[in-house]
């Protein structure tokens, strides 16, 4: 931990001493409302990322945050790779399997079960994975076992064995998860929402089929590993009970004869515009509808991001103090969970999504409330109190991003991976504080599009369309942009073929 001084409010500390000696403090007057309390300044400055940043002789970047409170070492490697990278040999599903099987499938000198036994005996935790646009490898071990664990960690990274029986096991487990694709309405909602926003052709929405999974061979995994996992794609985040120079030396020694290879290409952008309208997915035996309402958003490098985050916080991102939850849940008791997210994409536009889950009959009414709120934040300026609360929820909680050495190293490494400036953390609070109610109105008008809403409702469609007899004025179909209503039949979970297409 970086230490921060000046936290202790002197007056209260004196009161504390008094209490210890005389015990009279309990009679001290208590203010009648919490807003009358006054607080000392919080003197928090985020750590200087540049001071933690090191470049190894191999060119690889490593952030190191020392913390000697516990005898633990944590090493995270961010890997610039993912399902998106498309060299000629890459079949769908290979990247993800190659990522998880790096750790699960054994390493050069040890079979998968020998490796498992050794790591479990050392109580060392090593995890590897490759997702859609990034990969990661993490190691957490006792400081006393550091050298032995590092050897194993790098052996896994560099010479994964990809034992065939583990590949078969992983495939059978994945098949089982595939079978369950239509079981849970939450999973259906997530899948259909990305398809509606990014289209079937985009890598991010591709769901591996049984045939594709069957076709993946051990050779495919080895080939992908050689292509994607090399020091040229690594960023290190190291924290815990280490001496910076010493650990960098240990890493460098293990990287020095491992050349970096070709860097991955750009992440492909989706090629379609989402079509507004109402989309319905029928699931017979549930009594609750899950609803997503929204459209594409923008990217994280957009200078309007501060105003956008505050706008969304007031609209639906700020929990109980936000408008959507307050109206849908607190006022009307229509849902347990409701809100909105304004996702900022790293490589392409993220998604703006307002959401709730409500009993089927109330879906139309809750949808109408959410659409009203999306309209209202575009036409009326937010109140000073809302603006102040939203800002505080970002500014006053900022220090929590640096609550541990692991978080600190990880945060900077992540900015580096995204190609962003690590100096952003020093201006973040000022940038948030500078947002005005006019800015919020402007970005709401510019980035929220009530005429382009995609409305997705998953649940018992008959009940959702029938609505609520006590409130017959709400009709889900009437809210569809341009009157377009589409029913999406559940796909075969193994082939992902949609009937009626």
């Amino acid at each position: 931990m970086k230490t921060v001084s000046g936290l202790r409010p002197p007056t209260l500390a004196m009161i504390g001493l008094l209490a210890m000696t005389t015990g009279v403090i309990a009679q001290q007057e208590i203010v009648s409302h919490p807003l009358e309390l006054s607080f000392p300044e919080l003197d928090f400055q985020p750590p200087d990322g540049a001071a933690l940043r090191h470049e190894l002789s191999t060119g690889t970047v490593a952030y190191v945050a020392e913390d000697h409170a516990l005898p633990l070492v944590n090493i995270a490697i961010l890997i610039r790779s993912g399902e998106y990278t498309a060299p000629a040999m890459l079949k769908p599903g290979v990247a993800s399997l190659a990522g998880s099987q790096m750790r699960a499938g054994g390493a050069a000198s040890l079979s998968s079960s020998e490796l498992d036994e050794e790591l479990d005996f050392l109580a060392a935790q090593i995890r590897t994975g490759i997702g859609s646009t990034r990969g990661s490898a993490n190691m957490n071990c006792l400081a006393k076992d550091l050298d032995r664990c590092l050897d194993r960690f790098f052996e896994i990274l560099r010479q994964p064995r990809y034992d065939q029986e583990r590949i078969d096991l992983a495939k059978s487990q994945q098949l089982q998860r595939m079978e369950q694709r239509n079981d849970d309405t939450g999973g259906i909602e997530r899948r259909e929402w990305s398809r509606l926003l990014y289209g079937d052709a985009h890598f991010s929405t591709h769901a591996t089929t049984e045939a594709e999974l069957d076709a993946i061979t051990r050779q495919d995994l080895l080939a992908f590993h050689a292509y994607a996992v090399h020091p040229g794609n690594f960023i290190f985040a190291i924290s815990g009970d280490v001496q910076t120079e010493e650990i960098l030396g240990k890493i460098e020694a293990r990287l020095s004869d491992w050349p970096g290879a070709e860097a991955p290409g750009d992440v492909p952008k989706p090629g379609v515009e989402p079509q507004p309208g109402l989309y319905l997915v029928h699931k017979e035996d549930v009594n609750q509808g899950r609803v997503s309402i929204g459209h594409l958003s923008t990217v994280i490098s957009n200078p309007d991001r501060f105003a956008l985050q505050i706008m969304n916080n007031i609209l639906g991102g700020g929990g109980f103090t936000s408008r959507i939850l307050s109206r849908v849940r607190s006022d009307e008791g229509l849902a347990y969970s409701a809100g909105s997210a304004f996702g900022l994409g790293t490589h392409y536009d993220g998604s703006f999504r307002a959401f709730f889950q409500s009993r089927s009959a109330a879906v139309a009414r809750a949808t109408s409330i959410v659409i009203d709120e999306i309209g209202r934040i575009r036409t009326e300026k937010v109140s000073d109190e809302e603006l102040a609360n939203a800002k505080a929820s970002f500014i006053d909680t900022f220090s929590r991003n640096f609550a541990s050495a692991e978080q600190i190293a990880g945060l900077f490494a992540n900015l580096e991976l995204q190609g962003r400036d690590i100096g952003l953390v020093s201006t973040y609070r000022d940038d948030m504080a500078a947002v005005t109610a006019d800015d919020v109105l402007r970005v709401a008008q510019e980035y929220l599009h009530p005429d382009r809403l995609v409305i997705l409702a998953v649940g018992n469609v008959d009940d959702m369309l029938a609505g609520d007899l006590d409130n017959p004025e709400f009709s889900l179909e009437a809210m569809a942009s341009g009157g377009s209503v589409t029913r999406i039949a559940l796909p075969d979970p193994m082939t992902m073929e949609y009937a009626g297409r």
Partner: protein
Amino acid sequence: MRRIVMILALLLCVAPGALAQQVKPIVHLLDNGMTVLLVPRTGDPNISAGWIAKVGSVNEHPGITGVAHLFEHMMFKGTETIGTIDAAADRRVIEQLDRLRAEIRKHEQELLRQQRVGEIDDWRDREHRSQAHQDLLEEFDSALGEQRGLIIKDDFDRIYTGEGGSGMNAGTDYDFTVYFINVPANKLELWFWMESDRLMNPVFREFYSERDVVHEERRLRTDSTPTGLLDEQFEATFWESSPYSWPVVGWPSDLYGLTREEALEFFDVNYAPNNISAALVGGFDPEEAIALAERYFGRIPRGEREPEPVRTWEVKQQGEKRMIGYADTSPQVRIRYHGVADGHVDEPALLVLGQLLSGRTGRLFKSLVEEQGIATSVSGGQNGRRWDGYFEIQGTAKQGHTPEEVESAIYAELERLKTEPVPDRELQKVKNQNAAAEFRRLQSSFGLLLQLLIAEGYRGWETINTTGPKLQAVSAEDIQRVANTYFEPEARAVAIYYRSQGSEPEDPRLAGLDDQERQQINMVRQQLAQAAPDQLDQMRQQLAQTTAMAAQVPEENQDMFQLMLELISERIEELEGEQE
């Protein structure tokens, strides 16, 4: 989302070990019986803060199940000061609402009677209501409307949020209810103000609409999840007389009937300071914190009545219980043995035994998943609650295998534990992991806060230091002994879940097909049902392609494959008919 029903897995992470990084909080006991635990961490810009009330659904009784959880929701609704612009007017409306609700309840009782004897189907249907009933509901709504003008919405959250509080949440479990938040280090006094105020002067406004929110939570967590209702039934099957038999969220009929008065009564006994422990972990001065605790929490009077221990013990199970259910889920088995409560002398051995069975190098995974290839996942462990406990093992069958095969293989592993001592290295592996966990658990302030509070909810915070050495002391003989003591068929309940087949009457052609095959046929049927006449050409092509694949279909699936072809041909004929 907020106000969760606690997930018990949390407790399993607490399993400590022996290299023993002892946690030594400063312990301060207030005159009113409240315990305050302080772990200052110099320089931390944040404070994780929370308190636990040693009350959960186990302290309820039939008729008020779900009250502990509903109560947790009410604790966010404000106080005499927070959440209203006019406390006196607000109180008048609340009393009026209670009166109306009591009147409405009489009408509901009559409708419930009619439903009970079969005169009506659903007492909630508007058409069954009398005019007087309907009038009362309208009067109730207009009173609610009046109250809305007096309420400051979610004021409690708003004040914390505006001051940089984050992660505010609460959870209700069988044995305890816990409330927590993170505040910036300079806002310590705000936390004391807010928390002492809601313990001293709570006002349960919006009680009846919050009941509806809890209904939605129940739908979300239980009714709408694939195995939610079956899991609930398994719990009720396993526990005979124990109050652990009902769900934390409560039975639906109780949720409809709960009154504000019952919640208040529950509060008076169970949320008295003598039943509460608070803790702080982070950047604060302990002397200052003690002074603030004295000033703010010290003013709350001790409860007039001490909370009573749970009276009803589980009766001894007389024979094995079995339950079969169908759901949209992979075929699986749950095996649960009656066992020991938290703190029992046999608990450490049972905890270690659970670790020996679970995880990637655990016996169950190695045997059932890797060697025999009959399961895709399997794990188990000891679960000691405050008043009783159990040992549970769950396994999911691999495609082509049945939950019954998984069940027998699990018994074989338990049998091995009964007859052969565990090898030293295997036992040492588990102990090494427990020792490392002693450090890992201290990595986050918030994590430590929860461990301290939850330990207080059971037997006291000291157990987070004493459990580790006990786990290290477990011997191979201990393991063998507890395996022989607790894993007896008459002490267990078994649930088997099959994938549901759909409710249609069975086609005789399905005879001879296994679960997976039936499921595939079902899927084909559903897709075919949705096909429209304009897709006929496509379907004919599909039929031709599928027929051509026949040679690649394994022998054991040929019967299913032929049936699939038949179904496609039938549907094509049907659609051709429609087209003409």
